[in-house]
């Protein structure tokens, strides 16, 4: 396995690390791209992107982890392109890079938190995306969300003790915030476009499934993000879960970023199994 650091994109301003397997992967095998999670740089939460990229490379996948403009080590864009559009353009540039350097034709995207939202956003627009691993995607507040989010706290004596001491997270969430004034006019459209709606999410997933892309949802059982699955995705995915186009992993006793090493092991196993299945030629069948 070899790792190369490089600059790519229209202005050679995006920083990426390519991991190459010892022998060139077959042209039909998709390459894998890792997208930034929140504001963390390309190594990912708890360095998990590095682990996943290296494990997948050992399985014969070509991988790229990189920083979007303005994140990690990549320079901010100099044009006014909104971030939500920039991530689509820049992920496509990452795919272009691997297509020209290694002949990759199809791609799998791996994203955690906002990286999952961006993976869906890109996947719905770029037909080269053959699959996406969506780890703890954004949670859209909807009816029942508050009850869902705080259901465990209601049963936890520690939460009641904090409430009585005035240190409750629920109180903090309900308290009016000093910055609750309307957003600056220029920031509003950008902020709206960054946060997907329930309709956006359902449409993006539908587009990918119609294209027979392979989806892998990974959640922390205790996380608010899992509410999204229950309230938005579940009904869209029933058929896909049955016929194998989609997978669902709900990991217990972990947090949003998979801090316990045991949870990272579970996450890595889920992604590896999904990628191997997604990278298998269609004729090979499930037992190949």
């Amino acid at each position, binding site marked *: 396995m070899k790792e190369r650091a490089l*600059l790519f994109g229209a202005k050679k301003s995006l920083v990426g690390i390519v991991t190459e397997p010892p022998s060139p992967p077959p042209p039909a095998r998709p390459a894998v791209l890792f997208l930034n*999670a929140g*504001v963390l740089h390309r190594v990912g939460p708890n360095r998990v992107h590095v682990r996943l990229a290296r494990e997948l490379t050992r399985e014969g996948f070509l991988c790229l982890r990189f920083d979007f403009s303005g994140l990690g*080590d990549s320079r901010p864009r100099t044009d006014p392109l909104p971030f939500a559009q920039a991530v689509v353009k820049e992920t496509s540039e990452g795919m272009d890079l691997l297509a020209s350097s290694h002949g990759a034709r199809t791609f799998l995207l791996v994203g955690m938190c906002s990286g999952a939202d961006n993976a869906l956003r890109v996947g719905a627009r770029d037909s080269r995306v053959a699959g996406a691993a969506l780890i703890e995607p954004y949670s859209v507040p909807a009816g029942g969300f508050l009850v869902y989010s705080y259901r465990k706290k209601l049963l936890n004596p520690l939460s009641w003790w904090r409430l009585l001491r005035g240190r409750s997270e629920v109180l903090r969430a309900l308290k009016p915030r000093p910055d609750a004034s309307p957003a600056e006019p220029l920031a509003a459209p950008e902020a709206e476009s960054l946060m997907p709606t329930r309709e956006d999410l359902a449409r993006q997933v539908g587009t990918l499934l119609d294209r027979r892309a392979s989806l892998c949802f990974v959640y922390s059982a205790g996380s608010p993000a899992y509410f999204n699955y229950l309230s938005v995705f579940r009904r869209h995915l029933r058929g896909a879960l049955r016929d194998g186009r989609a997978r669902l992993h709900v990991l217990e006793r972990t947090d949003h*970023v998979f801090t316990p090493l045991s949870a990272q092991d579970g996450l890595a196993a889920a992604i590896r199994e999904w990628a191997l299945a997604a990278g298998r030629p269609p004729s090979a069948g499930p037992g190949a």
Partner: protein
Amino acid sequence: MKPFYFGDPRRPLLGIHHPPRGASRRTGVVICHPFGQEYLRAHRPLRELAARLSEAGYHVLRFDYHGAGDSAGEAAEARVEGWLEDTGAAIVEVREASGSPRVALVGLRLGATLAAHAAQRMGGVDALVLWDAVTEGAAYVRELRAAHRQWLLDHAPGAPSGPEEVLGFPLPASLAGDLEGLSLDAVAAVPAVRALVVGSDEGDAMPAPWPAADAGIVERRRFPPAPVWLHAEGMDRSLVPGELLDFVVGWLASACP
């Protein structure tokens, strides 16, 4: 700015070189990152520091230790001795890039402790900046383990966890032992021509190392608390303490004009 791998080809290190913008001072600055979760949270402010130093005319090298960030190796195999060798390799690299032996080291948290030890070992360091240095490794390991337990209690109750992990990263017994044996007290003399000791943690004591040193050699400065390495919302936003960064750049400009 250029990303590249350097050092021993058996354990390549990821480096980010920020060349000087405008007139070069022909001086290299190596930035030494903290460890584990602190490394992730401090990435942005240290990148910003590198950008400001580059604007001020320095060759700046940020790098990841073996088993950390994008460098080769797994976290479970990391050792302090290897990290000191990595810091030495980064010094060699930045000297080559600048074409001059003049070099400064800037370290944050554990990176500061490693920078001080590396400076003592290598010699010839012109300036050293210790930013909220870890002064006692044993206390540091205890703090990490306590923070880990609290995090799990708050965010992942019931998660299986042993002593060999802290806040999402492996802490094998070998590395924990190394860290517990690490102390700034072991760097008896100021290992650079001049040193700056910066505090921005929640405490109010002036940072400790070399208390008897002449004020012309060791300058100490405390800033309003902005512990960038602890920022709890590390995934959503990061802190960039502009005043502190500008002070470090200005101090280096006087120490290494």
